């Protein structure tokens, strides 16, 4: 009904400052798209362009097939939840939620009905006459949500809405957000730098870096098949091991160990081997790829130990997650790298090397 489409969207302030380059994507009704990336990657700029708070330098924005690139923010029928919530401090909670409807000249009985519905839904009934200054952080967040929901907009925009909550509350509100927005039948665009939020909430994730779209995929595939070295390193904690290796006759050389390259990487002279710490395990008989090394650092993560292992005969480190049932410190251990868990990237371009199996 109100599909959001971005076409070749670019924004530049000067020749050197170009926060967004040629972004094209579309978000369907009810779809939850997260823009994920480090600060300065262009995700907030994208959101501001969609909202109309800044004009794009180039490109087109369409909502429900309607070109809104030149429309004022108020004409786009968009609702936005801000990082600081941006509640009007001089208005009561009720007036804050009602303000957008009042501007659209909705009858006051209708406003009252809709607000009571939304406030019941969010548990705000008893706060209606308070000022934002008298609310807790979590309550303010709900009011900001209510102000967006009550508008029944064509598109929801959320700009890091959880970042001002403390860690405990954040997890709880995250779950609530998921529930609330699963019932909304409009495109939802969510901006965050927190990959857990992106993974848990989204139906699709767009990873941005340096103004460029790196990968647009489901959370599962972003994790299991990162499109390039940046995504591989950005997604997942602890970070994926990324080893820069020389190639020799269709094998990558990790110290004295030879690791066979997939077909697509046979012509390369250098590759990057990516393996997630949770996929590196202790050796078992019959394992094809085995490396040995000395444990230099042990970090206790509670459910497991994160070990940093110096690969024998190489100045490289590999990190692995092992069960904390014994003391690893200072030991020399043998590790196995399961071939099916390896991600290969072209060292030159950083792009994923297509697997031979596919």
């Amino acid at each position, binding site marked *: 009904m109100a599909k959001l489409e971005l076409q070749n969207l670019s924004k530049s302030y000067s020749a050197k400052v170009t926060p967004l380059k040629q972004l094209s994507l579309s978000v369907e009704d009810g779809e939850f798209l997260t823009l994920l990336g480090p600060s300065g990657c262009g995700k907030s700029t994208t959101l501001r362009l969609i909202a109309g708070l800044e004009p794009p*330098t*180039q490109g087109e924005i369409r909502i429900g097939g309607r070109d809104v*690139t*030149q429309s004022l923010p108020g004409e786009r029928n968009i609702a936005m939840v801000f990082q600081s919530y941006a509640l009007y401090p001089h208005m009561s909670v009720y007036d804050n939620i009602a303000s957008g409807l009042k501007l659209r000249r909705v009858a006051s009985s209708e406003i009252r009905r809709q607000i009571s519905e939304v406030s019941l839904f969010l548990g705000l009934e008893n706060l209606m006459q308070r000022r934002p200054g008298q609310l807790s952080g979590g309550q303010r967040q709900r009011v900001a949500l209510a102000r967006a929901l009550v508008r029944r907009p064509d598109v929801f925009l959320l700009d890091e809405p959880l970042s001002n909550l403390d860690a405990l509350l954040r997890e709880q509100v995250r779950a609530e957000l998921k529930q609330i927005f699963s019932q909304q039948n409009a495109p939802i665009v969510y901006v965050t730098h927190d990959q857990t939020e992106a993974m848990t909430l989204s139906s699709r994730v767009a990873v941005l870096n340096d103004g460029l779209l790196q990968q647009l995929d489901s959370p599962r595939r972003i994790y299991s098949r990162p499109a390039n070295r940046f995504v591989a390193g950005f997604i997942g904690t602890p970070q994926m091991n990324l080893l820069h290796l020389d190639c020799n006759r269709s094998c990558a050389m990790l110290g004295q160990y030879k690791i066979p390259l997939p077909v697509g990487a046979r012509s390369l002279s250098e590759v990057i081997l990516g393996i997630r710490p949770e996929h590196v395990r202790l050796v078992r008989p019959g394992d094809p790829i085995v490396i040995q090394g000395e444990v230099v650092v042990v970090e206790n993560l509670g459910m497991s130990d994160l070990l940093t292992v110096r690969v024998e005969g190489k100045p490289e480190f590999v990190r692995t997650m092992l069960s904390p049932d014994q003391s690893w410190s200072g030991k020399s251990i043998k590790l196995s790298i399961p071939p099916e868990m390896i991600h290969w990237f072209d060292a030159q371009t950083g792009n994923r090397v297509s697997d031979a199996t596919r």
Partner: protein
Amino acid sequence: MLKSPGKLNLQQQEQRTGWLLLAPALLLLLLVYVYPILRSFWLSFYSQNLGTELKPLFAGLDNYQRMAIDGRFWESLANTSFFTLVSVTLELGLGLGMALVLNQAFRGRGVVRTVALLPWALPTALIATTWTWIFNDQFGVWNDLLQRLGLIQTGVNWLGDPGWAIWTVIAADVWKTTPFIAILLLAGLQSISADFYEAHALDGASPIQSFFQITLPLLLPQIVIAALFRFAQAFGIFDLVQVMTGGGPGGATETVSIYIYATIMRYLDFGYGAALVVVTFAGLGLAVLLGAWSLSQLRRGAS
């Protein structure tokens, strides 16, 4: 990059609104600040006085030549410089002390801050009458206090004595404007993080050492700003002198502004008055530029 015309219009529209909102303020500032200075500049090349029946006659640089040999002008300039230098220095020193005191934690600090602010807020012309009364030769309380303390035998005519008169004006000015400096410096003091002092104290520094090594350097920008403000104001001092001494006795307290005012309003010599305005403006501008330059150097050094 290509820009579609519609978007340009949106931006243009915003700018037009901006200029529209800015215009009344800018016009008023131009009218009251810029026009008078330009007008004085123009007029300074004309003779317009009782001799020309108040009609402007082109006179080239006559006014400026006359100024060069006008002993009264140079004397007023010397008076102004003396007054400015002494009062601003005293005000900075006392203002810093006051700020340091008001920055301490003590009971009733809010009340003390309020009281300390009072002198700044009161009308200078009225304050001038207050100090005239204090320094009155017959009934003044200053004479009485000094006599009671045995410091003088008979009353001194403070305002009537060419040597003392300027000091009465300085006293009044210092009393009135020290709070202003104290407020600016207090804000500066409050912006200095306590961490610096704690770290410095852990290094074994005494409070006096931290004053010279932390407080003073970090406060320097505020001190320069306050000095700049006060310098400009003191250099143009008018109401205090006009009411207290009128420039007397015998021109001993005549500042440039008093001389300009008299030239224009009493002698009706507009051309020469304009030339005085121009020269004062130029001198002041030069000094302020120097101050602003040193401030920018300071800020560059700090960042």
